[in-house]
Structures are given as structure tokens and as C-alpha cells.
């Protein structure tokens, strides 16, 4: 801006930028009068609005963390030999512990209690392998891990090629074909300690998005709300909501292409299971439900 802008005009512009964001803003006459008072006001308002949007975007969505490619360090013979030894005797192999697979049917929730006091709440449609007393692998679905912390033996969860290591923690993991998220409600985790080493504290979520990792803020108190049948979203796409509904209701639910990218913000309280619960959820989502074979489709009304 070349013209000199008075402090007063800028304060007023800031106020209008702030006020017009209110979804219930109604004083368009007052706003028009201010704009008409000086042709510079409209430019100031535009300029501040764009700056405000940029700042809000940064605050709402942390910038993607570029993936660091992990490379084997070049090592001398002695170090290499030591490493090989560790590989031969993996620390998770403990005598007397047979890996155990636990699967929950769609719509069925399960709680697993471990000997060390840790607890794993499994959502429906979830498959989990206990590979050791402090090691689990999430193959698909969603689970909330509430971990008894032990500095000497960190609890580790693997999923796909990702590794989550706890630092005194409760965290929720979702693994679906197109989605992998870890949400931390207490303490902190390290995501891929041998690669990107992203520390994710309580109240944040890390998400694989193509080739990038995305860290966003979440409400820590709401992590794991699915255990009470509560699904909470802020701008989530409907295909993601459909995945959650499938797990929670025991139905195969998908979002039709016409609505799958539509964002939804709000809370769905699942009451009961099956078709009726799906229909009331659909009302909240503003879509209709259509049955196709044994699948249910969310479609545009």
C-alpha cells in the first residue's frame, strides 16, 4: 500500500475484518457506510482480510513437515557387527510370549488389558497383533492405547511402516487403506523415532498425507470419544466419516463420489447399531442413505 494509512482507519478496518467473520454478522449498512466514507477503506479491508486468512490458516493447520529420508549411516566394521547382533536378537522377542492376534467384528468394541496395567480399547473392525509385552501392531481399524509408562521399556506400536513410541501416553491410532492418523490425548509420543522423529504432544495429531506428515491441533479431551459412540469432526471429509460409521455401526458404509469430499463439522452421537442409527447419523450429515447389496452408500439428497 502506497497511501499512508492512519492508525484510526486501520483500527476500524481490523474491527470490520473481525466483525464480518461472525456468521451472524448483520450490520452490513454500517459496514457500507464505513466503506463509502473513504475509497481507501475497501483496499485496507481487502488487504487485512487476506493477511488474516493466511495467519488463521497457519494457526489452524500446522505446515506439513517435510519427510526426511532416512539413510543407513556409513559405519566401520565394529559398529556394523554390533548392529547385526541386535538384529539377530530383537529386543521384543521374550521367552514365553507367543504373539497373539485379536480382532473385533465391525460394530463390536473390545478392551484388552495387559499385564503391565496398559489398556487397549479396540473399535469395531479392528485387527491387532500383540507381538510382545510392550509391542503391538495395528493391522487395520482404530485403537486407543492407554499405556503404563516405563522409561526402560517404552511401549511401541507399529502400523504399516510407521512406528509410534510412547513417552507416558494415551494415544489413538487409525489405520485404513487411505488413512493413517495418530492422535495424542496424554503425554507425548515419538513418531518414527528412527526416521522423521516427530514428537507429538497431547492435543495434537499426526497424519500421513501422501508423502508428507501433517501435524494438526485437536481437542485432547475428545480423543477416544468413539468409545462412548461419539464421533467429533471439524471439517472432516465424508469418506472419513463413512469409515468411522462402518466401525462404529457394524455396517459397510461408503460415501458416494458426489459427497465424499464434502466437509463436515459437528458431533454425531451413535445410538444403537445398524440401519436406524445410520439413518439418524445421515440426517446430521445432510445426506441420504442408499442400500446397494450389503453396502450402504451416503449420497447427496
Amino acid at each position, binding site marked *: 500500500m502506497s497511501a499512508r494509512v492512519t492508525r484510526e482507519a486501520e483500527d476500524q478496518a*481490523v474491527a470490520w475484518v*473481525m466483525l464480518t467473520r461472525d456468521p451472524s454478522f448483520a450490520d452490513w449498512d454500517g459496514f457500507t457506510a464505513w466503506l463509502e466514507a473513504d475509497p481507501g477503506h475497501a483496499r485496507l479491508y481487502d488487504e487485512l482480510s487476506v493477511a*488474516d486468512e493466511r*495467519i488463521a490458516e497457519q494457526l489452524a493447520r500446522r505446515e506439513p513437515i517435510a519427510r526426511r529420508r532416512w539413510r543407513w549411516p556409513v559405519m566401520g566394521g565394529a559398529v556394523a557387527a554390533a548392529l547385526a547382533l541386535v538384529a539377530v536378537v530383537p529386543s521384543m522377542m521374550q521367552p514365553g510370549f507367543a504373539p497373539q492376534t485379536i480382532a473385533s467384528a465391525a460394530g463390536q468394541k473390545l478392551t484388552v488389558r495387559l499385564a503391565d496395567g496398559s489398556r487397549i480399547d479396540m473399535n469395531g473392525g479392528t485387527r491387532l497383533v500383540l507381538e510382545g509385552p510392550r509391542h503391538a501392531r495395528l493391522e487395520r481399524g482404530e485403537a486407543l492405547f492407554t499405556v503404563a509408562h516405563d522409561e526402560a521399556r517404552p511401549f511401541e506400536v507399529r502400523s504399516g511402516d510407521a512406528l509410534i513410541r510412547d513417552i507416558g501416553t494415551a494415544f489413538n491410532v487409525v489405520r485404513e487403506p487411505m488413512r493413517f492418523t495418530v492422535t495424542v490425548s496424554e503425554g507425548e509420543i515419538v513418531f518414527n523415532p528412527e526416521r522423521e522423529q516427530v514428537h507429538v504432544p497431547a492435543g495434537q495429531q499426526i497424519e500421513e498425507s501422501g508423502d508428507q506428515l501433517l501435524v494438526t491441533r485437536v481437542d485432547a479431551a475428545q480423543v477416544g470419544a468413539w468409545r462412548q459412540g461419539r464421533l467429533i469432526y471439524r471439517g472432516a471429509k465424508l469418506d472419513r466419516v463413512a469409515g468411522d460409521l462402518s466401525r462404529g455401526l457394524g455396517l459397510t458404509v461408503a460415501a458416494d463420489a458426489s459427497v465424499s469430499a464434502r466437509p463436515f463439522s459437528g458431533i454425531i452421537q451413535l445410538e444403537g447399531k445398524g440401519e436406524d442409527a445410520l439413518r439418524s447419523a445421515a440426517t446430521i450429515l445432510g445426506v441420504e442413505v442408499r442400500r446397494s447389496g450389503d453396502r450402504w452408500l451416503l449420497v447427496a439428497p
Partner: protein
Amino acid sequence: MAPVPSIRNRDLTLAGLEAVFLAHRAALLRFLRARGAGDDAEDLLQELWFRVAAAPAGPIAEPVGYLVRAANNLMLDRHRGQMRAMRRDLDWAEAATAADHEMPNAERALVGREALGRAEAVLAALGSRVEAIFRRYRLDEVTIDQVAREFGVSRSTVEKDLQKAYRALLELRSGGDA
């Protein structure tokens, strides 16, 4: 109760909106001019209608406010478009501006995080209530009245806090661009 087929709903909403649009044509034109539309005001008014007609229509409680807001958004988009065009023109001349676009991903993320760090520091310095009120209002898209209810303070307190936060955050912009 059988739901009314939504195509009918949409037609009804559109017909109603069109009536409001025509009745307030002069006021909308005046608003567009005040927003800096100049000689393009008539064209923009037409564009506004195309936009409103193309948007998914649900029931609209305040049709006049809805249309003025749509006009305001149209002008904001126009401004963004102009800024983009201007930046493109500048790119060949000013390497510094170009760097903003051509930066490799990792560096861009770093810049993003630095800016984020500054914004978060500015917010934190304003105190926890101001920060919480700002985040709730600006990031969650709720009304000022709702924020006031949630925090148990008056509407004018919320407005003052918001003004403080906006002002401080927007200072960052002058610091960064100058």
C-alpha cells in the same frame, strides 16, 4: 413425514432468493461500488447472481444478509485474484518474490513453521483468555455471542479481546512484508 424431494426445496429457495436479489438490486450495486467494484459493478452483480444460483442452497434465514455476504466474498476473491496476477507480473523482476513460490518443499515448510511460531508467540503473549477467545472465534467459526456465553463474559469483552488479538497478529504482516 415424507421428506420433500430436495430438488423442489432447492428450486423454492432459489426462486425466493431471486426475488430478494431483484428487490435489493440497487442496494447490492451500492455495496459492490463501496467495496471498490468501480465500473465493473454491473458485471460483478451478474457474476454474483451466477454464483448464488450455482451454490448448494439450503434454507436461508436472512436472505439479504446472505446476498451481501456473498457479494463481500466475491470482492475478496477478486482481490485475491488481482494479487496473484500482480505477483506473477513481479516474479520475473523480483527474485525475492519468486523465492516465495519456487522454494523447495522443505524450506517452504520451515518458513511456514517460523511464521507459525511467530503467530503463536504473539498470541501467547496476549494472555490465555485473549488467546483462547481468539482461537475459538477465528478457528472454529462460531459467533461472537456464542463465544461470550461460553467464556461467561460480555460481548464487548469478547470484541475487545478479539480486536487486541487481530491487531497484534496483523502487525506481523507489516513486519514481514516491509
